[in-house]
C-alpha cells in the first residue's frame, strides 16, 4: 500500500488531468461557484459579455468578434480556476481510492461476553457499534477501530501506514489501539470497538484526503474577505468610470469594461486559493501525517515552540558506548581490547555499541580466540563475557563486576564511575581475571545533524524544548549537546501540560508529539498535537494530527509544511495584486486614447492597437492561472531562514516579479496576436 505515497503520483498524471477537465466544467455551476466571489464575478461578467457578443453577431455589428473573443477568454479564466481546484482534488482522490481498497466488509466475531472467547456470533463489520467486543485471530482483518482488552499480537498496519513491518499490539499500556483494516499476523486479540460505523479512522482519513469534508480554514476565510473587498473596490472603480468617461466623451462598451474589471480583480489568487489549501493537506498526507483539519495545518505554520521527546527524537533510543576510562596504571588500548572480548557475547544494543565504538576509535576487530566460550548477557547476572583457557573477561554493571571479582575497586575506577553517573551516563565495569581494568561510559548519543537542525529552527524563530524523564543533570548535559533552547527534566504528564500552558500564556504557540494516554491532556492543550499512529486511542483523539509512521522527529517537517502552505498563499496573493499595475498601463491608454490622444504616452508597452492591448491583458490574466497551477500544487520552495530574510526574498520574487512579469507577458502576447494577423483591418 505504499502506493498511497505521492511520489508515485506525477504532478500532472493523465488520468487526473482527464477527470480534472470534466470536474472543471461541472464546477462552473454558479450555485457552487458563488463560494468563490472573485471567480463568481468573473463568470457573471463572462456570461454578460458572451450574450452581448452573440447579440452583436446576430445583428451583424462589426465588433462582435471582439466581444466574443473577450468573452471566450473570460470563460477560460473561470475554467482554469475550476480546473486548478479539480486537479488538486483529483490527486487527493487517487490516494483515497487506494485507501478505500483496504476497507473491506469483513465478518466480525462479536463476543457476547468479553471474558468468554469461545462464544461469538458473526456480524458484518459495518454493523459493529462502539462498545461491542470482538475477537480477531491471526490472518484476519481488524473489523473496526478499537482498544485491545486482552491478548498480544503482531499486526500488519501497512494499510494505514504503508510500513510493512508488523507492530506489537497488546492490552493495557500505550500500544493498545488498533485500527480497522489492519491485519493480524500472529496470535489473537480481544478488541472493544471504539468507533461508530462510517467514522473509523480509515473512513475519516479517506474523507480528509478526498477533501470531501474540506472547510475553509480561518486564514482562507480572511483572505476570501480581502479578495471580495478588492473585487468590490474594483467594481466601484470600473462602474464609476462609465460616468467619468461619459463626461469625457468616451462611451465604454461592456466587453471593454468586462476586460478591465476581470483583469483588475484578483483572479489569480482567487482561482488558485482552494487548490493551494487542498495541495497543502495533500503534502502532509504524502508525508504520512494526517491532519484532522486544515486549521491544524495553518496552526503548524504559526508554531514557535516545539516540545520534543528526548528519546527517539533527539537521541537514539538506546544508550551507547561513549568512552573507555582505564583504571590507574592500565593502558587505554589494553582496556579497549578487554572491553571487546568481554562484549563479544553480548548481543544487546549496548554490547554492540561497545564493539562499534572500539572498532571506530581503537581499530579493534573482535576476534574471539578459538575454543572460547561466550557468556551471554542476562538480566540476572547483569554480566556478559568470555572464558578461554581459564581466563575470564567480564563486563557489566559496576557492582556486579565488583562482586564477581571479589575485590574492592582499584584506584581511579570509583571516581570514574561517579563521574559518569553524575554526567548522566551509565557506567559499566570491565574485568579480566579478577582485576578491574576500567569503566565503559554508556551515554545517550545525540542524533547526528540534529544540532544543525535546531540551529535552523532557531533561525526560523522556533524554540525547541526537550522533554525527558532523566534527572536535571543528565537532561542538562544532553540539552547542551543537542543545542535545544530549554528542557523539562523528570517530566511528568502534568509537567508537560503546565509547561505548555505557561508558554502559551507568554503568547507562544506550541506543538508537541505524543503517544501515551497520559500525553492526551498535553496533546489537547498544545496548539498542534501530533499523535503517533502506534499510540493509544486517547492520544489519537486528543491530537489534531496523526503521524502514521509514528516518528516524532516529523514534528519539524509538519511545521515546515504548514509554513510552506501559508507562504504559497501569501506569495500568490502578492503576485496577483502586483499584476494589476501593468493592466492599467495596457487597458487605460487603449480605451481613452481616442478621446485624449496624449494618453498614448501611458502605453509604455507600445502595444500595437487598443483592441490587441485589451485582449492581450485578458489572455495574460487567464494564462497566468494555468501557469501557476504547478506552483500552487507543489508549494513555494521553502528553505528555513529568519522571517526578515524570507520576506525580503519572497517580496522580491513575488512582489517585484509580480509587478514586472505581466509587462513582459502582455507585450509578448500582443506581439503574437499581431504576428498572427488577427488585428489587420
Amino acid at each position, binding site marked *: 500500500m505504499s502506493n498511497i505515497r505521492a511520489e508515485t503520483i506525477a504532478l500532472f498524471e493523465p488520468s487526473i488531468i482527464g477527470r480534472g477537465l470534466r470536474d472543471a466544467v461541472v464546477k462552473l455551476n454558479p450555485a457552487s461557484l458563488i463560494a468563490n466571489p472573485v471567480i463568481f464575478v468573473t463568470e457573471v461578467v463572462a456570461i454578460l459579455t458572451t450574450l452581448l457578443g452573440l447579440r452583436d453577431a446576430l445583428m451583424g455589428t462589426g465588433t462582435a468578434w471582439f466581444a466574443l473573443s473577450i468573452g471566450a477568454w473570460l470563460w477560460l479564466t473561470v475554467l482554469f480556476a475550476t480546473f486548478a481546484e479539480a486537479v488538486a482534488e483529483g490527486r487527493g482522490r487517487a490516494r483515497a481510492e487506494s485507501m478505500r481498497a483496504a476497507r473491506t466488509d469483513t465478518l466480525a466475531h462479536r463476543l457476547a461476553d468479553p471474558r468468554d472467547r469461545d462464544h461469538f456470533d458473526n456480524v458484518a463489520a459495518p454493523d459493529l457499534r462502539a462498545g461491542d467486543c470482538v475477537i480477531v485471530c491471526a490472518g484476519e482483518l481488524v473489523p473496526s477501530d478499537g482498544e485491545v482488552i486482552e491478548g498480544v499480537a503482531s499486526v500488519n498496519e501497512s494499510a494505514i501506514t504503508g510500513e510493512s513491518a508488523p507492530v506489537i499490539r497488546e492490552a493495557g499500556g500505550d500500544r493498545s489501539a488498533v485500527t480497522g483494516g489492519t491485519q493480524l499476523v500472529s496470535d489473537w486479540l480481544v478488541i472493544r470497538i471504539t468507533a461508530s460505523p462510517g467514522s473509523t479512522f480509515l473512513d475519516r482519513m479517506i474523507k480528509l484526503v478526498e477533501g470531501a469534508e474540506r472547510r475553509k480554514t480561518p486564514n482562507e476565510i480572511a483572505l476570501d474577505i480581502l479578495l471580495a473587498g478588492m473585487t468590490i*473596490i474594483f467594481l*466601484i472603480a470600473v462602474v464609476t*468610470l462609465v*460616468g*467619468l468617461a461619459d463626461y469625457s466623451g468616451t462611451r465604454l462598451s461592456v466587453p471593454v469594461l468586462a476586460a478591465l474589471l476581470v483583469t483588475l480583480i484578483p483572479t489569480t489568487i482567487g482561482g488558485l486559493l482552494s487548490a493551494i489549501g487542498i495541495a497543502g493537506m495533500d503534502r502532509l498526507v504524502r508525508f504520512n501525517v494526517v491532519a484532522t483539519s486544515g486549521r491544524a495545518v*495553518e496552526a503548524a505554520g504559526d508554531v514557535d515552540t516545539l516540545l520534543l521527546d528526548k528519546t527517539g527524537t533527539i537521541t537514539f533510543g538506546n544508550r551507547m558506548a561513549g568512552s573507555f576510562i582505564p583504571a590507574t596504571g592500565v593502558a587505554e588500548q589494553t582496556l579497549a581490547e578487554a572491553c571487546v572480548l568481554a562484549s563479544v557475547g553480548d548481543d544487546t544494543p549496548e554490547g554492540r555499541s561497545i564493539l562499534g565504538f572500539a572498532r571506530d576509535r581503537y581499530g579493534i576487530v573482535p576476534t574471539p580466540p578459538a575454543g572460547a566460550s561466550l557468556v551471554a548477557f542476562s538480566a540476572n547476572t547483569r554480566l556478559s563475557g568470555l572464558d578461554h583457557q581459564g581466563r575470564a573477561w567480564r563486563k557489566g554493571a559496576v557492582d556486579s563486576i565488583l562482586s564477581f571479582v571479589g575485590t574492592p575497586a582499584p584506584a581511579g575506577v570509583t571516581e570514574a564511575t561517579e563521574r559518569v553517573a553524575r554526567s548522566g551516563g551509565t557506567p559499566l565495569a570491565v574485568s579480566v581475571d579478577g582485576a578491574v581494568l576500567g569503566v565503559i561510559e554508556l551515554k545517550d548519543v545525540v542524533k547526528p545533524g540534529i544540532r544543525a537542525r535546531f540551529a535552523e529552527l532557531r533561525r526560523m524563530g522556533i524554540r525547541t524544548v526537550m522533554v525527558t524523564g532523566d534527572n536535571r543533570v543528565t537532561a542538562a548535559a544532553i540539552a547542551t549537546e543537542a543545542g535545544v533552547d530549554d528542557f523539562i527534566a523528570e517530566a511528568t504528564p502534568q509537567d508537560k501540560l503546565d509547561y505548555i500552558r505557561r508558554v502559551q500564556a507568554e*503568547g507562544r504557540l506550541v506543538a508537541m508529539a505524543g503517544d501515551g494516554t497520559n500525553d492526551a491532556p498535553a496533546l489537547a492543550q498544545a496548539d498542534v498535537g501530533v499523535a503517533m499512529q502506534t499510540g493509544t486511542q486517547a492520544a489519537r483523539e486528543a491530537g489534531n494530527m496523526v503521524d502514521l509512521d509514528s516518528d516524532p522527529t516529523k514534528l519539524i517537517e509538519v511545521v515546515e509544511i504548514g509554513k510552506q502552505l501559508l507562504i504559497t498563499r501569501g506569495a500568490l496573493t502578492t503576485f496577483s495584486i502586483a499584476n494589476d*499595475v501593468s493592466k492599467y498601463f495596457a487597458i487605460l491608454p487603449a480605451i481613452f486614447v481616442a478621446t485624449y490622444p496624449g*494618453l498614448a504616452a501611458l502605453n509604455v508597452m507600445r502595444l500595437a492597437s487598443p483592441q490587441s492591448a485589451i485582449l492581450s491583458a485578458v489572455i495574460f490574466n487567464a494564462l497566468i492561472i494555468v501557469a501557476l497551477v504547478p506552483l500552487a500544487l507543489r508549494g513555494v520552495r521553502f528553505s528555513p531562514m529568519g522571517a526578515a530574510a524570507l520576506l525580503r526574498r519572497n517580496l522580491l520574487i513575488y512582489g517585484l516579479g509580480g509587478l514586472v512579469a505581466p509587462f513582459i507577458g502582455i507585450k509578448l502576447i500582443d506581439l503574437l496576436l499581431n504576428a498572427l494577423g488577427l488585428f489587420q483591418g
Partner: protein
Amino acid sequence: MTIAGWLQIALVLGVVAAAAIPLGSYSARLMQGGRTWLHPLLGPVERACYRLAGIDPTAPMGWRGYLGALLIFNAAHFLLLYAMLRLQGLLPLNPQAVAAMSPRLAFNTAISFVTNTNWQAYSGESGVSYFTQMLGLTVHNFLSAASGIAAAFAVARAFAAGGVTSLGNFWADMVRATLYILLPLTVMLTIILIAAGVPQTLAAYPVATTLQGAHQVIALGPIAFQEAIKLLGTNGGGFLNANSAHPFEDPSALITMIECVALTLIPFSLPFAFGEVVGDRRQGRALFLVMFILVIAAVAACYAAEAAANPLLTGIDPTGGNMEGKETRFGIALSSLFAVLTTGTSCGAVNAMHDSFMPLGGMVVLFMIQLGEVLPGGVGSGLYGILVFALLAVFVAGLMVGRTPEYLGKKVQAREVKLAMLAVLILPLTILGGTAISLVTASGLGSLANAGPHGLTEMLYGWSSAAGNNGSAFAGLSADTGLLDWGLAGAMLLGRFATLVPIMALAGSLAQKPKLAGGAGTFPTHGPLFVGLLIGVILILGGLQFLPALSLGPLAEQFAMLSGTSY
C-alpha cells in the same frame, strides 16, 4: 527649483521631525494617565472638568461604549453648531450684522466642522458672525481635533495589551487632548501670529480709503487664535475666505513656514506616541518614516511640477515657474510645500490656488488626499488610518514569512480584515461614486467653471476633499448648490464616521486578542523592509483605485498641455 526653495522645505520638514519626537512621547505619557510638566498648572482645571461633568476618568470603556460616547458627543455638537449658524443673526458679537445661514448651507457647514473637514461652502467674511467664529467654529476646531486624537489613542491601546476590553475613557481622553495638547500649542502659536501682525480683535470692519480714493471694507476679527487651531488641529477652515493666502492669516514667508510646521506637528508626532503606547518605539518610527518619505516625495514632485513654467505661455521668463495663483511673498517652494502638507494632513488650509497648479502639481495634492489622508493625515485620523493600511500590508505580505499574519503580536483574522476593508471601501465609494454622479447630472455639471479634464479634476477634487475630510477646495467649483451641499455633507460624514465605526470595532476586536510574543520567525514591522512594503501598499492600493479617474483628469490635461491644448 532653487537651492533656497529646497532649504526652506528642508528647514520646515527638519523642524517638524525634530519636534514631533518629544511631542509624541509627551502625548503618550499624558494620554496613558501619566504626569507632565503642565500638570501643576492644568491639573486643577482638568479635575474641575471631571467634577463639573461628573466623569470618572478611570472608568474603562469597551469599543462600543467609547464609540458611542464619541458619536453622541459629536452629534450633540453638530446640533449646537447648526443652531448657532441658524440663529447667529439674533446672537451677540455680530458687528457686521451677519444674517442666519440657509438651512442647507448651515447643515453643510456644521457637518464640515464636526468632521474636522472645514469644507467652506460659505465665505468667512460675510457668512458668519464673530460669535459663531469664536464659540462655534473655533470651539469645534478644538473638539473635532480632540475627538480624532482620542480615537487614535483608543486604537493604539488595542495593540498595547492582550485580552483586554477597555480602550480607555473617552471623556478623559477628550479633556486631556484639549487641555494639555491643543490648548497650550494654540496659545503659543497665537502669540507668534499676533506678534507677526495677524489681527485678534472684536472691532467692526474698518473702511479704508485707497490711494485711488475708493472705499474698501477691510475684514478683521479674532483671527489669530482661530488661525492657530485651524492649523494645529488640521481643521483648515480659514477665518477669511482666502484662507492662508490672505495676509491677515499668513503675513510672510516666515509665518507660512511656521504654519507648515504647525499643521503637520501633531499628525507627525502621533506615530511616535503610538510607538510609546505599544512599548516599542521602533514601530512608531517605522510608521513615521512611511509618512515622512511619501511626503518628501510628494513635495519634490509638486515642487518640480510647479517650478516648470506653463509651456503654453509664451513671452515670459520660463525660469520663474508657474506663479499663477501663488502669493509672491511665499514663492513656488513654500506654496508647493504648503499644498502638499495641507492635503497630506487632512487640514485643507490653503496659501495658494490649487486650481492654478500645473496639472501634475494639482494631481500630486489630489492624490495625497486620495491615498487616504494618512500622510501624515489629520490629527488622530492619520494614525488610525495608516494602522488600517499596516494591517492590510501585514495581512497580504505577512503570509510570506510562513505564519498566519500578525501585527504587533495581534493576529489579523477574518473579522479584522472585514472591518479594515469596510473602512477602506468608504473612500473610493464616496469619491468615485460622488464624482461620477455629479458629472452625469445637470445639477452637478452646473457647478463646474471649466470644461474637459480640468473640470473633471475640479469635481474629483471636491469629492475627494470632502470624503477625505480635507476641506481644501480646488476652486472653480461652485459648491453651494443642492447636489453638492447635501452630497458633500454626506461624503464628509461617511469619510469621518463610516470609517471610524469599523476602525473602532477593529480596535475592540484586536484588544481582546492575546498579544503573541515576537521572535525571529515573526514578520518584522519596524525595519526598512516594512517601511518599503507599507509605502508600496499605500501607493498601489491608492493608485489602483484612482488611476482611471486621474488619467481622465490631470493626466489627460498634462498630455494635452504638452501638445498645445488647454482647458
